[in-house]
């Protein structure tokens, strides 16, 4: 089953305005005076207005509010207020209890046992218990067209141990599954509610801090529930997410229209600061890359792949194309993320065209070669591809660019597998094991050339089997270095621009590691 493809489609569905966060001290982050999106909300309980309605100006509408029918990660933001998840990933990408209060791997790793919160019910009064969790997992795995089935494939069956203890019998490692239970795959719905005919658009029976009040094409409105189990994280009386159309409309909605926060493009940052908005620092867990199909063109030769990596001038791209907002990177995860490897720095491949030519000559390609790359038909990616095209030309390599809409570019590279390379953003993942499986193991959904080595596969499996991030991090450090030596991907840079702006009298929007906004703990200061 091919794995989920997150950041490319979802981020660009959000008009490439995907959020920030997840990195409190990332390299290259500008504006040290800005807020850190990784910081937990610090609203003084006495200073916020508990009856206020927080307004977020966005550019999209939800396609569905049924967690099992949401088609992309970015749109989960509409569902998070209504449905709590079993676990929660905080802004530092650490996993915290939520509707599950604790968990443990039992039976020698064959099962994951979770203890559930006992002081909560669904909004419609249905008890939140182990039976409800089991029913939710069953639905997510079996509902026709469920977009969560792949995320839960590691669950073979669900056992109800007692009213508030559930055991997942596993057919795979626990760590990636736990991370998935922090996404829509772990959202809990009242089993009494999901058969309602309009559940897709007007779901009731949620488990979160808000109930849905209305869902119209121009805005989605939520109201706070009474006696929420985590009152410190429910600081407003209502929430509105506007579909404000274009960039100007969103900015106007915040600076003049009474909305509190919006996401920003790089070019909007000066205006946002001039208007007095607080601009949030932070980086999405995303990288810009040239992905290679190692079964096509000359990419089965490690020397050719290394040559391309040495031919890319990452510093020039960072300064020239991104105004310093895209520091160089040579691994899948930017600094600040727990699985980032300090031993694979941004200058791991020194920019050295001479070395690149020498490597090509060793590979018998002294005269260079030619290949085609698909590129998302969006300015950022086209500019990046054009810059790399020129840099490759310096070493005699011709990269022909074919622009395609996002979905078609992905399909060409990973589904049809008829193109040698793709200039794309990485997927935002809930766990590095998912990325490693998709890109660096045979049969991985983003690995059309089935690239891997026994050492890489072994490291991946070992890291995947561990539960604690402290145990897994060193393994990923070694894994990314092995992968850097093999160079099946040309990682270029990671976007580090501030990406959220809010009025000074509000705050608390979290943009966690996968770039998905959560409105848990948002507040508006009392006047």
């Amino acid at each position, binding site marked *: *089953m*091919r794995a*989920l*493809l*997150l950041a490319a*489609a*979802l981020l660009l*569905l959000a008009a490439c305005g995907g959020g920030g966060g997840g990195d409190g001290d990332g390299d290259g982050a500008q504006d040290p005076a800005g807020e850190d999106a990784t910081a937990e909300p610090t609203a003084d309980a006495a200073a916020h207005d508990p009856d206020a309605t927080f307004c977020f100006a966005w550019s999209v*509408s*939800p*396609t*569905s509010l*049924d967690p099992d*029918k*949401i*088609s*992309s*990660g970015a749109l989960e933001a509409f569902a998070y207020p209504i449905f709590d998840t079993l676990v929660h990933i905080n802004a530092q990408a650490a996993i915290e209890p939520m509707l599950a209060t604790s968990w443990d791997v039992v039976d020698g790793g064959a099962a994951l046992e979770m203890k559930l919160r006992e002081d909560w019910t669904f909004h419609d009064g249905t008890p939140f218990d182990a039976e409800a969790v089991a029913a939710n997992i069953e639905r997510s795995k079996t509902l026709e*067209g469920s*977009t969560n089935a*792949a995320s839960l494939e590691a669950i073979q069956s669900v056992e109800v141990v007692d009213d508030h203890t559930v055991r997942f019998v596993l057919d795979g490692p626990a760590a990636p599954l736990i991370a998935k239970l922090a996404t829509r795959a772990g959202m809990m719905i009242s089993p009494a509610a999901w058969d309602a005919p*309009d559940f*897709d*658009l007007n779901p009731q029976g949620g488990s979160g801090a808000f109930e849905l009040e209305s869902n*119209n*094409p*121009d805005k989605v409105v939520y109201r706070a529930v009474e006696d929420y189990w985590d009152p410190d994280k429910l600081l407003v009386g209502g929430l509105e997410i*506007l*579909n*404000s*159309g*274009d960039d*100007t*409309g969103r900015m*106007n*909605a915040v*600076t*003049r*229209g009474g909305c509190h926060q919006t996401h920003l493009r790089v070019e909007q940052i000066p205006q946002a600061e001039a208007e007095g908005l607080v601009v949030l620092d932070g980086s999405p867990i995303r990288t810009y890359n040239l992905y290679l199909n190692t079964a096509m063109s000359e990419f089965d030769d490690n020397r050719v792949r290394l040559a391309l990596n040495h031919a890319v001038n990452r510093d020039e791209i960072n300064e020239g194309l991104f105004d310093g907002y895209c520091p160089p990177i040579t691994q899948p995860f930017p600094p600040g993320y727990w699985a980032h490897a300090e031993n694979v720095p941004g200058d791991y491949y020194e920019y050295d065209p001479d070395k690149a030519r020498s490597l090509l000559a060793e590979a018998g390609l002294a005269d260079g070669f030619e290949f085609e790359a698909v590129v998302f038909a969006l300015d950022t990616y086209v500019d990046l591809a054009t810059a790399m095209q020129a840099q490759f030309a310096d070493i005699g390599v011709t990269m022909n660019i074919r622009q395609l*809409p996002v*979905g*078609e570019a*992905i*399909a060409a590279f*990973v*589904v049809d597998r008829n193109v040698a390379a793709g200039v794309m953003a990485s997927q935002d993942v809930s766990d590095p094991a998912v990325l490693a499986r998709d890109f660096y193991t045979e049969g991985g*959904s983003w690995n059309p050339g089935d690239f891997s080595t026994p050492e890489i596969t072994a490291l991946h499996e070992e890291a995947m089997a561990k539960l604690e991030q402290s145990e897994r991090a060193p393994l990923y450090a070694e894994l990314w270095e092995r992968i850097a030596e093999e160079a099946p991907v040309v990682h270029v840079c990671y976007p580090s621009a501030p990406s959220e702006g809010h009025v000074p009298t509000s705050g608390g929007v979290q943009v966690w590691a996968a770039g998905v906004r959560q409105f848990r703990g948002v507040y508006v200061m009392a006047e």
Partner: protein
Amino acid sequence: MLGLVPLILLVSMLVFGLLMLVPGDPAVTLAGDDPSPERIAQIRAQLRLDDPVAVRYLRWLRGAATGDLGTSMLSSRTVASALAFALPVTASLAVVALAIGSLVGLTLGTVAGVRRGSLVDRLTTIGSSIGIAVPHFWLALVLLIVFAIDRRWLPVGGYAPLSEGVWEWLRHLLLPACALAASVAAEVARQTRAGVATVMEQDYIRTAVAKGLPRRLVIGKHALKNGAVPAVTVIGLQFNRLFSSAVVVEQVFGLPGIGRLAVESVFLRDLSMIQGVTLVTALVVIVTNLVVDLTYRYLNPKLQQA
């Protein structure tokens, strides 16, 4: 009236055919995070995208004939409900723009036509040319900046339905409507001026004046009624133009109308929604033309006798 049916059929067939030529697979877009072959195939099967074009068209036509325009390919929203939400927004915008433009145009045109050669006449003529030439989006941005962003007199965008109060409804529509009304006023003023000026030269007007009728009656009852006939035709045509011009203005002001719905549907390849929007727009145009014809016949009794 019978001619409407084949016309609508022709429009729907043309649009359906053009949509089939649009590159890209909506199933890939719908697959979102998971464009695996299995998922794409599942979506195509669910939406019956692999059926022959003619079969798909007839299926849509059968539904449309019974009022079922289908469901959005990208959400669970029915096309009818999406249109029911968007149509009042665009209709409100068009009506307010038309009202403002007609009022201003008829007034200025009448004054200019009655006082040919005067300063008002010349200013109206110049203003009409400017009003026709100025792009809607430019005027919309200028109005937005001056009255909403700088002075904060009016909202920067969004729509308030009538249920939130007439004043709130009008406040949100005023700026976008004025952006659209400029060209309406310009066209109406030109036509009215020409019509009134011509009528004012007629013998029956001189007779009315000679009989001692008050000037306002001469102008209001005799001159304007006959002189405004071409303006009525223009007003009707302007209503149709407003529907298409509203696309850009709705984007500037963030109005969730038909125009924005059409743009989003095209970008996302939501074929069901595009077809529904096209059908409704075609119906609006056709019905508007019918109303204009009927009004024209009322104003010109000779046409009724004919």
